């Protein structure tokens, strides 16, 4: 099978490419800058933007399936900024897939598309709900997922996979800030960090998405969203501790109350807005909410539908992370 992966430079995108190659697929990629995958592997790269239909069309020509994982992510930013990439870019991918007769589309979504702020406890994949999402990012992903799933028909089979909190060696989004703060002795947990949270080791998420490339033909699979996780929820405090330990640090978690955390987050957001900084503030109200709300999912249906189960346990994942930190030159 020949598969196009968009956003192949990212942590998950590159893992998807590696997984596809491992199962014997031919891989094309589309991203703005070179992924570094073309040379070592037999990957045909197209450099381009999702906003450029011709680049998109060129990248997917002759493919049997598309894994659409390119997206703008982040805690800050306007709806327009997120929508331009996540909504409009996805529409471009769908439009070109139809035009070029590509029969399968696996959309890499996010559980945040159905999260309205309430704890998710043993939850299944509820329908995306753009009106009640908690951030512009989640809202844009929700609209895009709705679009993708609404397009599902005989000619184009679509499915959405929502991996929850993907992490692994090289991750800059979850791992890097935690390690940085642990090193500075500023690793905070809110309300003791007791919220139980599902995470997904990157290779497991990639394997689930590659499984979905096959399973999307099944009538009970396509047209729906599936949450993917390791199925081993842990408390926020334990996740932080394990990540810091993998980086060779013996962390001391500092416990702050929810009220204090919210005050701090509001102040930081205000300051970042006033000073027009483009990076993410260290704490936002969205992040506080994510860190103090249980998020874990019922994986029985997903595993049966995709005929997939996680191959790397959390313990194994943390070990691999530790190896990666050990081999990496100190920064």
């Amino acid at each position, binding site marked *: 099978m020949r598969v196009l992966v968009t956003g192949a430079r990212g942590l998950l995108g590159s893992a998807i490419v590696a997984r596809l190659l491992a199962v014997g697929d031919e891989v094309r990629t589309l991203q703005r800058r070179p992924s570094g995958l073309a040379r070592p592997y037999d990957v045909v790269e197209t450099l381009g933007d999702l906003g450029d239909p011709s680049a998109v069309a060129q990248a997917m020509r002759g493919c049997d399936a598309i894994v659409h994982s390119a997206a703008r992510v982040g805690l800050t930013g306007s709806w327009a900024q997120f929508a331009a990439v996540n909504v409009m870019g996805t529409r471009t991918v769908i439009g070109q897939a139809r035009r070029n007769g590509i029969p399968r589309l696996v959309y890499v979504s996010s559980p945040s598309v159905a999260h309205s702020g309430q704890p998710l406890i043993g939850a299944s994949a509820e329908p995306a709900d753009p009106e009640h999402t908690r951030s512009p990012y989640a809202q844009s992903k929700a609209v895009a997922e709705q679009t993708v799933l609404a397009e599902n028909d005989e000619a184009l089979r679509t499915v959405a996979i929502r991996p929850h909190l993907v992490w692994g060696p090289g991750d800059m989004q979850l791992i890097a800030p935690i390690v940085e703060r642990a090193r500075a002795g500023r690793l905070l947990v809110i309300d003791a960090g007791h919220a*139980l949270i599902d995470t997904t080791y990157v290779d497991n998420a990639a394997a689930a998405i590659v499984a979905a490339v096959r399973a999307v033909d099944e009538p009970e699979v396509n047209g729906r969203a599936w949450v993917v996780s390791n*199925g081993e*929820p842990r408390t926020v405090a*334990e996740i932080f*501790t394990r990540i810091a330990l993998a980086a060779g640090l013996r962390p001391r978690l500092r*416990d702050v109350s929810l009220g204090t955390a919210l005050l701090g987050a509001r102040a930081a957001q205000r300051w970042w807005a006033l000073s027009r900084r483009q990076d993410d503030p260290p704490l936002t109200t969205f992040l506080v909410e994510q860190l103090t709300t249980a998020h*874990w999912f*019922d994986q029985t249906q997903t595993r049966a539908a995709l005929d997939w189960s996680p191959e790397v346990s959390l313990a194994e994942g943390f070990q691999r992370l530790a190896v990666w930190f050990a081999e990496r030159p100190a920064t």
Partner: protein
Amino acid sequence: MTTTPAVPTGTDDDPAGVSWAAGADPAGVPWRAVGVDPAWSRIADVTDPSGRTHRWHLLDRPADGDQPALTVLCVHGNPTWSYLWRGLIAQAPPDVRVLAVDQLGMGLSERTRSPRRLGQRIDDLLSLTDALDLAGPVIVVAHDWGGPVALGWVAQVRTYRPEIELAGICLLATAVHQPDHLGAPPLIRLARLPAVRPLLTATPLFLTATLRVGAPELTAEEVAGYRLPYRRAAHRRAIGDFVADIPLNRRHGSAAALAAVAASLTSLGELPVLLLWGGRDPVFGDAHLRDLCDRIPHADVHRYADGHHLLPEDPRVPGDIWRWVAWVRDGGAGAAAAGAPDDAADSAAAGAPDDLPPLWAALLVRAGMSPGPRDNPVPAAAGADPDVAELTQPLPIIGRSPEARIGTGTAAPSAPRAPAGSDDPADVELTQPLPMLGDSADVELTQPLPMLGDSAQPARRAWPVTPTAPALTVMRAGRRGGRAVEVTWRDLALLMGEVRAGLIALGVQPGQRIALLVPPGAELVATLYACWSVGAVAVLTDAGSGVPVLRANLAAAGVHHAVAVRRAHPLLRMLRLPGHITTVAGLRRAAARAARTARAAGPDRPPAQPPALPPPQPGDLAVVVFTSGSTGPAKGVRYTHAQVAATCAVLQRHYRIDDEDVLIAAFAPWALLGPALGVASVIPAMDLTRPATLTARGLAQAVAATRGTLLWASPAAIRTILATVEPLLADHARATRRAIRRGRPVPADPFGSVRLVLIAGAPVALSLLERAGALAPAAQVRTPYGMTEALPLTEADLRDVRTAEGDGVLVGAPLPGVTVAVAPLDFDGVPSLTPATAPGVSGEILVRAPHMRAGYDRLWSVHNRASTPAGWHRTGDVGHLDEQGRLWIEGRLGDVIRTAAGPVTPVGIEQAALRASDLADVACVGVGPAGTQQVVLVTGGGPGTGLGRHPESVSPEVLDAIRAAAADVVPGAPGVVALLRTGALPVDTRHGAKIDRPAVAVWAAGVLSGRGG
């Protein structure tokens, strides 16, 4: 006589001005809106014997097929109508026809010109069932004042309608007689007041009030359904007439009919009867239930402690009625006994041998007494001053008695001397003959007793005669070694004889229930055995569980009399018992009065003896003992005389209890069974309802005072003993050094005489067993498994437990005579009903034993569930048998964690976690929705005394070790997701050892949800 389907008849314009005189128009009723299938509604024109035709309305749900296998006839009370039964009808099995009638003047039936009396209503119902050609098997279900109507109908049918085959009667919240000590229910008396009665019909107040009080959960639609046929004053006339027809005195026009109905109940024979009651029914209270139970002793009873008057509206009731109907159709109790496996048949009360010695036999033998009647039945203690007999005082001792000995050899105030009695031992005698079970003839008790159990079992030894040896020693806390108050065998027997005489003098009848609210000690023991000797049923409930539980339990048991400390009398008076509320001293006073009367009658004339009481039979109920409520709501557990005897027999045989043994009773039943076992016992200075109050010093004093040999204690007591043992051992070491220095004999080891330590009541950790073993080096340490419903069942010793690692706690192999199986859990954690004994199969533990309970008291539905499959007791515990046939406990059925990989049980994981760490305690619970739950551990040791958040957990390394250990125990199950620390794990009050996992689970779920948990 014609019956027609419901058609519009349009009779609202009656010439007499009474609406619906010829019945309402059911076609105009919005049936669907009030939750009734319109197809059920029909009318029937019925001509009564006087030639008058009445139009009836009824709900008629036909059975599938031509002939119903059974017809259930439902009769409503006042002020309801057939609407009452819609829930029951909706759940009816397909092969059953259900007929729910509207009585004349009620519901949608015809409004009659004159009030219908009870007798007429009975005839009316018979006319209707004749018109419907009712035949074949019928079960009648009746509520409220429908009860007398239905029972009157039953009496008629049994005599005159052979084509109707009565299969059973189910009565809900009804009465056939006003108990004399109460008068009419206050609400009915209120409704009968001249000023109030017109309001019953003029306003819908009575109807509204009945609905509000009788079924507080009714929705507005349901209230509208009840009101539907009673919207206008003229519609409601029969409601007032019905109230007026309740006979509150003998002159009332329906009094004779009601009396005839009440009298007919004695001739019901073996006809199955189910009585359903609501504990919160202000109309028909517990006194009415007791009255019906006394009239129909064989009735099955289910009393919903929180049930209200309109029981058919209770969501549990329709299911329970159909469960009972199905059970009756299967042959009821007869089939259950027949269906029991063969080797369990001897456990049935009915199968108990007739030659069982009575429970009090050993007590009398050791006291050197013959139970035969003598010429001069004067109590030895006739002159005793009963007022000193408060139990907080040392027990006044009857007859001649050695002065109470002093514990540990130090000086202590002497117990009051025995009241003056005769010094002639021949005078030591009981006022009433004590009958032998199944044999009221004279039995020479000093001879070896007949064998216990069937003749295949080894003959029981004869008890030695030791009248002046202590039978019961009660330790009182004191500064220097404490005080030992001893009661000799003879004094205990005499006290029992006196209490027995008092019970007889007060008119206690066999089968009546007597609440015993007396602290453990000689008075309690004597009263318990006295109750048994008169055939009364002792009701025992744990005073430590608090006043609300106590009150609920006594109400649930429906006690007739109470023997209680004065402190409990106000509570007992609130329960409005029909009999006496007295103290042990009061009973002794009554005995003395009776004796004086007998004496005054003169030696020549035979004294006016109360009629001789029939001796209790082995299958008669002996005791109702309440569970602690530590594993669900408190329930009364019934034991027959044969089952109590079987419990004693298994204890005696298994622990080889001999005459030299002394039971150290840190466990309440141990304090009661000593006399039946024929061995002495000692109650340490402690609050028996709070096991953790037993200190090492308290135990040592009890051991020293009695040379106690057999200790039975809960894990909580053992923990306190271990926590307080250091100073005791230090003192002992000092005393030993001093003795050696002075060349005196060294003091005895504080627990040297203890030969057996039994730790039971909750799963016991190995470390606790090891430490308990170190405390009494000469003793064997064992942990029996059992429950209020059957004890002991299996047993493990230290060696077993030391080598045991597996999924659960090893409780050992079944004792001889005990059979253990499991009801395997399916993927959703639900036990199947096919017992399995294959090793390694997890399921709800099923047991069978001769010393198993007779059943749950007045909880028919609970009992039926706990006794299915037939012949077994379902324990509510989950576990498995191993290759060697030993039982492992994995937790309570309610503690099973339903994960995505199937059921996971908590105890094995907890044990693994404790082995893999130095945590002191841990609870394993599930969080999340059933079917995808995650496994969470919670440990105590944080700040505070209860469940409270604590930010710190254990180190990641310890967590890794615990996860690995748990995965070894339950391979394939989802791993432990988190380990939380809290202040202290909640445990039950009685044993102080059973972790309340459901409470921990709720707490953990809150914490792990993140916000505000």
